[in-house]
């Protein structure tokens, strides 16, 4: 039918052995993320946590969800999802990261609120 390029695609069956390796890796990564949380890495803590989480998610997507063996179109859909999520997150954060109020204070701008003479009193 349409998109004949996929017509020859036959189902790829992932053997249980692969699944076992993946679940083992996932459990190890879980242990790693908990361990990393107890080490003071400063601002890097969140980065490490997210990197490990992304590794885990990638394993799940590629193997448990068979994305590795899926047609290109599926991969395109996944990439589109990640891309649009990035638009949502990063373009919004760009506003917060560059917001400065009249006192030169960055977001949230509620600090030292008492410095402003309140007309409400």
């Amino acid at each position, binding site marked *: 039918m349409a998109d004949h390029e996929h017509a020859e695609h036959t189902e790829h069956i992932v053997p249980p052995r692969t699944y076992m390796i993946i679940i083992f890796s*996932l459990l190890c990564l879980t242990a790693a993320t908990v361990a990393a949380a107890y*080490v003071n890495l400063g601002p890097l803590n969140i980065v490490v946590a997210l990197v490990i989480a992304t590794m885990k998610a990638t394993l799940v997507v590629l193997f448990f969800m068979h994305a590795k063996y899926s047609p290109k179109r599926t991969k395109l859909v996944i990439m589109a999802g990640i891309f649009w999520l990035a638009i949502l997150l990063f373009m919004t954060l760009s506003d917060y990261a560059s917001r400065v109020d009249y006192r030169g204070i960055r977001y949230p701008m509620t600090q030292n609120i008492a410095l402003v003479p309140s007309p409400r009193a």
Partner: protein
Amino acid sequence: MHRTGALFGQFETLEQQKDTASLGMWIFLVTEVMFFGGIMLAYTINRHTYFHAFAMGSKTLSLTLGGTNTVVLLASSFTMAMGVWSAQVGKKKLLPVFLTLTIVLGFVFFGIKYVEYAQKFHHHLVPGRNFDITYCVNNPTRCEDMSAEEIKAERVELEEAQAADPDLNAHAQLYYSAYFGMTGLHALHMIIGAGLLFWLLGQSLKGRFSPEWNTPVDLVGLYWHFVDIVWIYLFPLLYLIDRHN
């Protein structure tokens, strides 16, 4: 549209049908990514702004319960994947076994989640009028599930956090809102997934799935794994914010 065996009338071939179903599911999962993306964004901004409140909130969660749940959910994903494999290779006896295991693990997750939620209600950590981040520290007798050491440790943490953020009680509510919002939506997805699994189980016991036609197993598997992925992110974001202090 009439159905001929496993082939629905609007399709020409089984191949096309399977292709279509899988594409549909993946697109649906992308909408789910965007759905959780919205609350993740709210979380990110509020956490960045009120880090001390979020760190304090995170410390009141039980790492044991959260960690156990992570393992439980990963294991359920594994059993689900094995279920899909059983269907693909035509092991008609094994499929219901793996589906049942997945459901059981799902319910273990719900059980642990229930314990956690109940604790939060008990400790006055649900946003609203009765919210009081200092409740257990000020009323140790009412929080009988916490040991004296735990209370003592929490008092230290609380004092530090309050020194850093005088408006802690307000901002901590943002953390718990994110906590209940995110885990609540995740749990809702799990409930839907569990419902689908029950349906699959019924069908598999009737021997409906074969190596030629196992699309529903495949699709529910995709959904279940996605829910797992959400938790993979929720766990470090909610439980592991600032554990090293």
